């Protein structure tokens, strides 16, 4: 059909999707660059999965277009799009062996025999499961099942790979390990990845670009460092883990000032904020504090035990300060 399908970029143009009175997608537009790792990040109900499913072809938008290169695929059947997909919970076929699961998309494309066997072996090799081909999915661990799902989604060299919260069912340690592996895989196969998650850490560590979604809209789109350092509004800042929002009367400047717990520190007598410690949690090398100001604002700050001259206890009065370079000003929200 096309000389090199990977030359085509995916372009989502002003799509809307409504369920009754609920606007799941509200005029969403985004161009996905060739070979990039794009993450759709947002809380549940933000529209990120609806957007992914529209791209996959399982949901038809009410209006707008989805283009693959010059081709309008808005209403194309899922099986005609040639996209790889990794589902939440993997969706491996339980009655087929690992090898047969991975061979399934090849079989659907009429690829059989030696060519298929070779591709399956390569895909399993790529995810480190070369020796598990004859097993059934239920005989594998969660992490291994996840890798099979990945192998199955890339074995037929799809135009792009869609991943719907693929790591959400795994424990923290395994998740970190698979994040690294996914990044390696992304570099190795050079495919375009569209990745859905509600985990900001996952998004920040893996993505080339992140689209933060809220109420069916993309509220900010950019590289992880851009989002982290210059969140466009309070929602994005909070979602990316900014804990403190200081009002005008504490800072003496217009609008809100966002300061991370890691950037707020104990400051002898010269600090600009005084507060009383209400709670503290030990996290190995650091202590995470919650403190209340006189006007009832709750603040979070961290103290590294290594360079702490004094460790405040509960109900102790402290003064806090921050450096301007670590603070993010917002227009009043």
């Amino acid at each position: 059909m096309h000389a090199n399908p990977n030359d085509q970029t995916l372009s989502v143009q002003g799509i809307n999707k409504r369920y009754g009175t609920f606007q799941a997608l509200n005029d969403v537009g985004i161009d996905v660059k060739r070979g990039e790792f794009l993450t759709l990040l947002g809380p549940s109900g933000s529209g990120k999965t609806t957007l992914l499913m529209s791209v996959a072809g399982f949901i038809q938008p009410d209006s707008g277009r989805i283009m693959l290169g010059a081709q309008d695929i808005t209403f194309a059947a899922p099986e005609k799009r040639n996209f790889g997909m990794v589902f939440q919970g993997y969706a491996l076929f339980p009655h087929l062996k690992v090898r047969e699961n991975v061979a399934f998309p090849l079989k659907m494309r009429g690829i059989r025999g030696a060519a298929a066997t070779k591709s399956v072996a390569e895909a399993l090799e790529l995810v480190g499961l070369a020796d598990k081909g004859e097993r059934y999915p239920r005989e594998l661990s969660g992490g291994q099942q996840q890798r099979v799902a990945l192998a199955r989604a890339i074995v037929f060299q799809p135009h792009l790979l869609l991943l719907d919260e693929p790591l959400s069912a795994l424990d923290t340690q395994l998740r970190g390990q698979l994040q690294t592996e996914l990044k390696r895989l992304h570099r190795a196969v050079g495919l375009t990845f569209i990745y859905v998650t509600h985990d900001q850490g996952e998004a920040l560590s893996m993505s080339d670009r992140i689209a933060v979604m809220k109420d069916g809209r993309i509220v900010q789109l950019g590289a992880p460092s851009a989002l982290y350092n210059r969140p466009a509004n309070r929602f994005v800042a909070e979602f990316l883990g900014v804990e403190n929002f200081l009002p005008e009367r504490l800072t003496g400047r217009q609008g809100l000032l966002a300061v991370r717990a890691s950037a707020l520190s104990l400051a002898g007598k010269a600090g600009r904020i005084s507060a009383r410690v209400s709670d503290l949690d030990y996290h190995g090398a650091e202590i995470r504090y919650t403190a209340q100001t006189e006007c009832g604002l709750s603040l979070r700050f961290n103290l590294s035990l290594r360079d702490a001259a004094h460790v405040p206890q509960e109900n102790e009065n402290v003064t806090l300060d921050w450096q301007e370079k670590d603070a993010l000003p917002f227009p009043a929200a």
Partner: protein
Amino acid sequence: MRILANPMLRYWLLIAPALLAMAVFYFYPISHVLWMSVTLPEPGVSNFESLAASRSVQRMLWTTLRIAVLSTMISLILAYFVAYVISTVDERRRRLLFMGVVISLWISVLVRAFAWFALLRNDGLINQALIGMGLIDRPLPLMWNEFAVLVGMVHYMLPLAILPLYSGMQSIDPRLVAAARGLGASRMTAFWKIWFPLTLPGVFAASILVFIYSLGFYVTPALLGGGKKMMVAEYIKVQILEVVNWGLGSALATLLLIFVLVTLAIVSRVVDLRKVFGAG
């Protein structure tokens, strides 16, 4: 009361009444029937010899097997559609459809057989309607034949087939079909390669259940077959109550029992029977 301290003993005491009732009212009569088949009118296997020699018995057994196989197949196909629909519609419709299935299970088999009477008779609803529309001038022979027996039996067996099929389908992750399509399978291929194989344990369970029920079915074949198409259960009743040939009747009952047990034994090599009958 020291005896009750043993937990195993307490469990046995709990099931003892049911066990006793089964022994007295079920196992004793059955073993009595088995005993009669080799003792009446005289000890020996003469009853089984005459069964093997009789053409009419062979014809009747063949009819029984054919009707059981046919009604199992037809029930399974129809039930598969119903179970599929129930497992895919929304919650409200599912409850409604489920009610329909269970209610038809609760209506007496006798009432249902007589309802078919009203529909299938020569002056029944169907024939009257067809004649009224001028499509036929003589009533179609819908009653007292194999067709009527099959209709009645399939009607009875449907819920028995739907329930195990549905329970099997319900446990299938609906994302599997979506995954298959995302990987390039058409609707039909996704159904045949993914959905259908995953429903096979349910199909198997439903088949065994319906087939065994059909083999020994009495009321519906007796009423709708009108004595012309006799199945084994009715033949046994005729032998015992009308011909008063206890030996031959109990020999047939023994044969039926053995056939069912052998079927189950073969099947149990392939599937876990406890799952088929709803345990585990």
